[in-house]
């Protein structure tokens, strides 16, 4: 009989600990022999750092990739996506097709972004093209909406215009580095309120890319009615959907927490906008997630001891176009409502079922191909191996005209195949 899995964590959250305990796993400390470590991003840095790092054994699994920040730091994510697009363009891929105004047709899913202070001059040039636009300043290394502010005048970011030539991102102090993105001031409003989407995506391996989408994502609503008016630029409650911020608003409600299920969103959009545009929207969302993962796959350290569950933040504009705002490596495991607690508990449960098969002592050499039955509320978002192989032996029903080429691998909508309208 195999021994019990020994687990460690430095995140004291009940949704985690309850899941470990229900599997009969044994808690140990970091210095003992452990099999499973759910670590914070600080700890993963230590484990894989040159000075303090150590080799992981075959029966040890961790919940982050060593250089996840290639995806989860705002500036690096943008850098990798830009690089990915240029590469596709160079090799003449149809994915990199542009329209008459030079915008990518299929890969324009990140709002125009610049790094400050490095790209300050480039930014100013872009800013001057449409001087009435609003931009959002975000510190690269922070989360939960900390340090974010909106600007609509160059004078508001004077301090980043200092001539500071830095050679690489590594030498910049994370405190000073900011990204500035074009603010999406025409978000889709429901009931007059702005919202964003939080979707969970599990990546078990980057090469070949295998990722899963959690079916139970949710929308986070602002408590105050949205207005693009300039007088409200300072009112963070109107603009920032992070629960961490909204929680302190006057109207914050502890029963629903300002959250809607993605199914509600789907019902609302289908009823008010129609089925085709809604399906197209959801297809596009899946598409941009997969593209973002493909963009970082080449630079990601595909350590076999690792898996990762990301929190994707997406905003939909009033033309029903989804925009990738950022990816979180450590999505919040705090529960703001009862429903929330259940959702996050199940999220961890399903994640563990996929990452640690059968709840037994892991062997990181396994093929990372879990059987369908353990997916729980996850569905396959993209499986590179399957997509490149012959698609005929999959049990997916395809509708006539559906191409199962390298872009195949679609996300299934509650068991049924959804026609992806990917060209």
């Amino acid at each position: 009989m195999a021994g019990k899995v020994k687990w460690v964590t430095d995140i004291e959250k009940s949704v985690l600990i309850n899941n470990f305990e229900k599997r009969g796993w044994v808690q140990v400390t970091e210095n003992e022999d452990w099999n499973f470590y759910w670590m914070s991003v600080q700890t993963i840095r230590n484990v894989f750092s040159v000075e303090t790092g150590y080799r992981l054994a075959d029966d040890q699994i961790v919940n982050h990739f060593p250089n996840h920040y290639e995806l989860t730091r705002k500036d690096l994510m943008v850098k990798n996506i830009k690089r990915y697009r240029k590469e596709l363009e160079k090799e003449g891929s149809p994915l990199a097709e542009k329209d008459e105004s030079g915008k990518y047709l299929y890969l324009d899913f990140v709002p125009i972004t610049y790094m400050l202070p490095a790209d300050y001059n480039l930014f100013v040039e872009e800013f001057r093209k449409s001087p009435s636009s609003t931009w959002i300043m975000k510190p690269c290394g922070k989360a939960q909406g900390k340090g974010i502010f909106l600007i609509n005048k160059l004078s508001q970011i004077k301090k980043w215009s200092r001539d500071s030539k830095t050679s690489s991102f590594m030498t910049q102090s994370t405190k000073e580095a900011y990204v500035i993105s074009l603010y999406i001031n025409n978000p889709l409003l429901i009931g007059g309120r702005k919202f964003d989407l939080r979707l969970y995506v599990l990546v078990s391996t980057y090469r070949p890319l295998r990722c899963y989408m959690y079916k139970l994502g949710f929308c986070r609503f602002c408590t105050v009615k949205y207005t693009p008016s300039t007088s409200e630029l300072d009112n963070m409650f109107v603009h920032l959907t992070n629960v961490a911020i909204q929680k302190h608003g006057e109207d914050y409600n502890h029963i629903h927490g300002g959250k809607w299920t993605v199914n509600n969103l789907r019902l609302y959009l289908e009823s008010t906008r129609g089925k085709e545009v809604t399906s197209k929207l959801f297809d596009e969302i899946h598409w941009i997630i997969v593209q973002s993962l493909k963009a970082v796959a080449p630079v990601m350290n595909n350590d076999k001891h690792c898996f990762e569950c990301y929190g994707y933040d997406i905003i939909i504009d009033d033309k029903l176009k989804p925009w990738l705002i950022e990816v979180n490596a450590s999505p919040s495991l705090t529960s703001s409502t009862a429903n929330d607690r259940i959702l996050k508990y199940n999220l961890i449960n399903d994640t563990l079922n996929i990452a640690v098969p059968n709840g037994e002592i892991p062997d990181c050499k396994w093929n990372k191909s879990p059987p369908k039955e353990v997916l729980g509320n996850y569905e396959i978002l993209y499986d590179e191996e399957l997509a490149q192989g012959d698609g005929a032996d999959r049990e997916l029903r395809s509708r006539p005209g559906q191409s199962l080429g390298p872009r195949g691998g679609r996300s299934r909508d509650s068991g049924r195949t959804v026609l992806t309208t990917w060209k």
Partner: protein
Amino acid sequence: MLQEESDLALIIAQIVQKLKGSTLYAQLERQAWASLQRPEIKLESLKEDIKEFFKISGWEKKLQNAVYSELNVFPLPSHPAAPPEHLKEPLVYMRKAQVLINLRNPNYENGDSHSFRTHLGLIQVPLKVKDIPELKEFFVELGLTAGQLGIDDSTQVPPELFENEHVRIGQKVLSEQDSAAAQQYIRQGSPTALRAELWALILNTSSQPEDILYYEQLKTNVIQHDLLVDSLIYKDVKLTASNDDYYFVFEDYLYQVLLCFSRDTSVLGHFAYNSASPPKSYIRGKLGLEEYAVFYPPNGVIPFHGFSMYVAPLCFLYHEPSKLYQIFREMYVRFFFRLHSISSHPSGIVSLCLLFETLLQTYLPQLFYHLREIGAQPLRISFKWMVRAFSGYLATDQLLLLWDRILGYNSLEILAVLAAAVFAFRAVNLMEVTSLAAAEAVLADLSTLKVMPLLQIFLFATVT
């Protein structure tokens, strides 16, 4: 034969009378005048040519829809000498009861000490309600042999079997703009994408500039004058919709719609067939003098706790406030008012309660007796579901499927049938409880229920 003919003539006369004052009449008149310019209209055959023109241009269809709408809403014609109160409510004791009810909270149960037959429920009123064989006939389209949205569109069923065709038919019905066909179609459920339009067609709402202007005027009234009922509305929304997982998003829309609703005097029209009467208020010092009476609130409807839940589900369908408003108003004057006024109408709350209790007692007698023994009269639990038409109790997509059928059958009886079906579904657990509180707990959470299978099993698959 003669009686039927004169009845028909009476109906026609009443409808013509009603439509003469409508916008549609004015529009038809305008169109008729304008059509005189057309080459195909000849003086010799003026009447036929204009009729032909109306047919081709779709105006005949609009007239058909309007007539159909009136038939749905208005009760059958009575004796010409009958006083107007009879139109509102034919049974005298009901009228008396309604006067009393006007002064009380509509969450009230009618319980007399007289018994009739061996009815063991709370409603002791000898009204005629349907039994299961009659319900099976009435709801024949929900039967096991017909396809249903809410059952046959589930993920395990290939769409080619029913869903695709049903959607196609729905699109055709919409393009024909035929109210009656839409009403028949929706008995099998509406596809999500077509629902908003289908409901608008069945309720015969229009989106003319006049309608939008009317709504804007109501909004202006809201800004200019406060009403005391406004506080009731605020309180209601804050207590119900704002705490609801599905509807909290639409809080602002709910305020808008309900505040305008209170000021909309056109709603007073429905009191002609509503057993209730609008409360009257008198200018100071002129109590009792009719010339100084005003209806209060202007629309004659005092909102109560949970009232905003009638509007909330509609927010999923209509994101444009004036359209949302129109649909709600129409739903109210056709259906929802019956849920909080005492009448003998088969869709009135009293009949629904009686129907529920009768179904339960007849087809689940063991359960009924058991619950009664432990002091948990079933109606005490199901009453709140029916009064709110299940809004706030079912998941929104299920609720909309249920309301599809309300529109399709032009009747609220399905609420009572569903309530009974829910009890039947949870019967095993309910048989084990020993207190009202425990029974409430078993039936506290309906959010996972699938409405159509429940109804089908109860009506068509239970041995009667």
